[in-house]
C-alpha cells in the first residue's frame, strides 16, 4: 500500500514537472510549479526528510511563489501594453516554441535523455546502507545538538552552510547590481484595505513565534535556521505588500548589519577557532550548543532580511515605469 502511494507520488511529481515546463501559458506554468513544489515536499516527507520537506514547501511554494506571482504580474502588464487584449493570453513561451527550429528541441531531447541515463545510473549504484550515517550519529554528543541534520549542517559541514548563506546574499547583490540605486526610496502605495491590514497585523506575531519555534526546535528535531528564516522573511514580504516597506523605514547601516550579520559572525567565529589553534569551524564541544544557537539565530535573521530585500527590490523595480521598459 505504501509502495503504491510512493509510486503515485513519483509519477505525480514527474508529471507536474513536465506539465509546468510544457504548459502553453505562463500563468499555468507558475501554478503547476507550485503544485510540483508541494508534491516534492510530500515526497521528502515520504523519504523521512522532514527538514527538507519544510524547506521545500516554504521556499518553493511560499517564497518562490510570491516571486513568481510578482513576475507574472509584470509579464501580464507588459503583455497588455505591447499587444492587444486578445493576444494577452498568448504567453512569451508559446510564441517562442512555435517559432523555434527543430535543432534546439533535438538538443533538449538529447540532453534530457542523457540526464535520465545518468540519474538512473546514480540510483542504481546507491550503496546499500552504510555511508556516513553511523559516524554522524556516533559524534552527536560532541556536536552540541541532538538532531543529526542540524549537527551536519552547522557543525560537521558548517563550511557548506556558511557558503549557502553567502549564496543568498550574492543573489541579493546581483539584484542590487541589475536594479540600480533607485531602490527603497519610494514608499510603496499604502494599501487602504482594513481587512488586509488587520490580517497582516494578526499574522506577523504568529509567524514570528512560529519561526522562533522552528529555530529553537532545530536543536532536537526537524527545523532550523533556513526554515525559520523563510517564515521571518514572509513577515517582511507581507508587511511590504501591506504597505509597510520595512527596509525603507530602518536606517541604511542597520539594514546592512541585518543582511550581513549571519555571514559575518559565522566567518568571525571560524577565524577565532583558527586563532585558538583549531580547524576552521571546529567548535569546542563545551560551547558548541550555545555557539550553534547564536550562529543559527543570526543566520536566520540575515537570510530573512535577504529574502525580504530580494522581494522588496523586485517588487519595487516595476513601480518606476522607465525601468520596466528597459528590463523587459
Amino acid at each position, binding site marked *: 500500500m505504501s509502495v503504491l502511494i510512493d509510486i503515485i507520488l513519483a509519477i505525480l511529481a514527474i508529471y507536474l514537472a513536465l506539465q509546468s515546463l510544457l504548459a502553453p501559458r505562463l500563468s499555468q506554468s507558475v501554478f503547476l510549479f507550485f503544485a510540483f513544489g508541494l508534491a516534492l515536499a510530500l515526497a521528502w516527507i515520504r523519504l523521512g526528510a522532514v527538514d527538507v520537506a519544510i524547506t521545500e514547501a516554504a521556499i518553493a511554494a511560499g517564497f518562490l511563489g510570491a516571486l513568481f506571482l510578482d513576475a507574472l504580474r509584470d509579464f501580464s502588464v507588459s503583455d497588455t501594453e505591447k499587444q492587444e487584449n486578445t493576444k494577452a493570453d498568448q504567453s512569451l513561451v508559446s510564441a517562442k516554441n512555435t517559432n523555434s527550429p527543430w535543432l534546439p528541441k533535438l538538443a533538449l531531447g538529447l540532453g534530457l535523455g542523457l540526464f535520465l541515463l545518468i540519474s538512473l545510473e546514480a540510483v542504481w549504484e546507491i550503496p546499500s546502507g552504510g555511508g556516513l550515517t553511523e559516524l554522524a550519529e556516533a559524534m552527536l554528543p560532541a556536536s552540541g545538538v541532538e538532531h543529526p541534520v542540524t549537527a551536519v549542517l552547522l557543525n560537521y559541514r558548517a563550511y557548506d552552510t556558511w557558503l549557502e548563506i553567502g549564496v543568498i546574499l550574492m543573489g541579493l547583490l546581483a539584484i542590487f547590481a541589475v536594479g540600480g540605486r533607485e531602490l527603497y526610496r519610494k514608499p510603496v502605495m499604502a494599501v487602504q484595505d482594513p*481587512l*488586509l491590514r488587520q*490580517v497582516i497585523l494578526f*499574522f506577523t506575531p504568529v509567524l514570528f513565534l512560529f519561526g522562533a519555534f522552528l529555530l529553537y526546535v532545530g536543536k532536537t528535531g526537524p527545523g532550523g535556521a533556513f526554515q525559520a528564516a523563510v517564515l521571518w522573511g514572509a513577515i517582511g514580504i507581507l508587511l511590504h505588500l501591506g504597505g509597510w516597506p520595512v527596509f525603507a523605514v530602518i536606517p541604511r547601516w542597520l539594514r546592512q548589519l541585518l543582511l550581513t550579520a549571519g555571514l559575518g559572525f559565522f566567518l568571525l567565529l571560524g577565524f577565532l577557532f583558527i586563532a585558538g589553534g583549531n580547524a576552521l569551524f571546529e567548535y569546542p564541544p563545551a560551547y558548541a550548543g550555545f555557539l550553534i544557537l547564536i550562529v543559527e539565530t543570526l543566520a536566520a535573521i540575515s537570510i530573512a532580511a535577504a529574502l525580504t530585500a530580494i522581494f522588496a527590490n523586485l517588487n519595487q523595480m516595476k513601480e518606476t515605469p522607465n525601468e520596466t521598459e528597459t528590463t523587459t
Partner: protein
Amino acid sequence: MTITELITVILLVVGCFFFLAGTLGVLRFPDLFSRLHALTKADNLGLGFIAAGIALHIASPWSALKIFFIWLFTLLASSTSCYLIAKFQREQHKPQNGKEQE
C-alpha cells in the same frame, strides 16, 4: 473497527467529498466569484472535516490543538485571499460595467 475509527473514517470521507465538490466547482462554475465560493467551501469544510478526523485519530489533546490551529490559520488566510481576489476582480471590472449599463 471501534466506534472512534468509524467516526474518523466518516469524517475523512465527508472531508474528501467537500474537496471533490470544491474542485468540481472550480473547474465547472462559470465565473470567478462562484469559483471562489467553491474553493473556499473546500478549504473551510473539507479541511475542517479532515482535521477533525485526524485529530480524533491521533487522540492526543496537544496534537488536536495544533491541528485545530492549522485549520484556523488556513481559514483566515484562505478567506482573506478570497476576499482580496474578489475585491480586485470587482474593481477591475467596475468601469467596464458602468459603461455597458450606460
